[in-house]
């Protein structure tokens, strides 16, 4: 087995004096899909934001390719794709403009590639419609179009299936599966009953401290 991309060692996070999780250790290996599970309020989103580098109110260590992440911040950011609850889509811009702006900081892509990605998520013909005129599901799809052209090896996806119809869900599941086969690593939180062969689990919840 190859070296883990991201390793968490003894993560502990407290939010408003409530302990969300502690002694949480795991490794994310290339070629795996991992699902973060747990009831509402157990810190799934918080964990993903910590892993993405948005939330630094935690203790414990995060290793990126075996070294402390803080030493390799740029390499980590270049190689990680995070999609949150709020997908970063501007309602006033068109899907194409949104996607172009989101990719602009990461790598050069032609508009053709972007249009193809949008078509791949079923948005063909909507490239030039302002996003505020699209449905919630369609807006979500604009953000998901990034997955079709993303080359980051680590994906952190928070509630990707929200507002997506059954067909879309199938397509995303297939995409994640394919991604793992290519050697990428995917971490997802979802309330949707995601079942993929070989899927790993991180189970949160029962956040009571048991060592005192």
């Amino acid at each position, binding site marked *: 087995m190859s070296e883990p991309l991201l390793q968490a060692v003894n993560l502990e996070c407290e939010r408003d004096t409530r302990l969300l999780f502690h002694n949480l250790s795991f490794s994310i290996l290339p070629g795996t899909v991992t699902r973060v599970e747990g009831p509402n309020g157990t810190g799934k989103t918080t964990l993903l934001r910590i892993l993405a580098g948005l939330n630094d*109110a935690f203790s414990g260590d995060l290793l990126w390719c075996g070294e402390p992440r803080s030493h390799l911040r740029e390499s980590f950011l270049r190689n990680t794709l995070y999609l949150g609850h709020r997908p970063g889509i501007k309602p006033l811009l068109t899907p194409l403009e949104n996607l172009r702006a989101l990719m602009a900081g990461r790598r050069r892509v032609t508009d053709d590639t972007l249009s193809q990605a949008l078509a791949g998520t079923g948005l063909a013909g909507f490239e030039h419609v302002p996003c505020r005129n699209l449905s919630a599901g369609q807006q979500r799809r604009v953000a998901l179009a990034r997955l079709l052209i993303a080359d980051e090896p680590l994906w952190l996806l928070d509630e990707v299936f929200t507002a997506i119809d059954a067909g879309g869900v199938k397509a995303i599941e297939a995409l994640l599966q394919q991604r793992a086969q290519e050697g990428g690593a995917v971490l997802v939180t979802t309330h949707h009953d995601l079942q993929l062969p070989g899927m790993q689990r991180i189970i949160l919840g029962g956040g009571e401290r048991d060592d005192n």
Partner: protein
Amino acid sequence: MWQFFHKLGSPKWFYGIATRFMPWLLASGLLLLAGGLAWGLAFAPADYLQGNSYRIIFIHVPTAFLAQSMYIMMAVAAVVTLVWRMKLADVFVKAVAPVGLVFTFLSLFTGAVWGKPTWGTWWVWDARLTSMLILLFLYGGVIALDRAINDEKSAARAVAVLVLVGVVNIPIIKYSVNWWNTLHQPATFKLTEKPSMPVEMWVPLLLSVLGLYLLFGWLACLRMKTEILVREQKTRWVKDLVMAGRG
């Protein structure tokens, strides 16, 4: 060295040390302040120009002095908060900011009281008074931001950034207010003409300043201890402390 640094950051350790030192701070502070004030108010000679009204400097100058140096101390603590994430540093900022606000207000108030007999009016847009007024705003901002953020750690770091931005600005504000003052007013009578002050005046002044510093130390310890108890209420040592206090 690091061991010591780590210890210094431990609220429990600080709580113990503070409890031991506080009576000394209080006693020596009161003694010096009382001495300085008694000397200044009753025995120092009257000013040849202002008569007895100048005697308010024995309160005005120490409060103004302390109000300004408290902001600098907060800035040092803010650096420690941001760089080393030491809990105690942000406890200090949180505990001291309201004290700073009160001291700034006191110095403004005593300045106004002094202004009445000196200039014949409660408020003059004098450079020093105006600078102190802006300092009051800065303290107000720090406290308002601290109160507005629910999460304790975020509040600590956001406040630290604000305090640092403020401390960079303080010299610029002072400089521009002085310049503004010369632009708009002919040189008026300045508060606190230090060089011409005879020994009988500045020695009691020094005593009051020192005394107030010590009292401030006591007050800061007291407020920090309270804040520590609130923050650490779930830990074993605070629970033990409270139980011991009851039994």
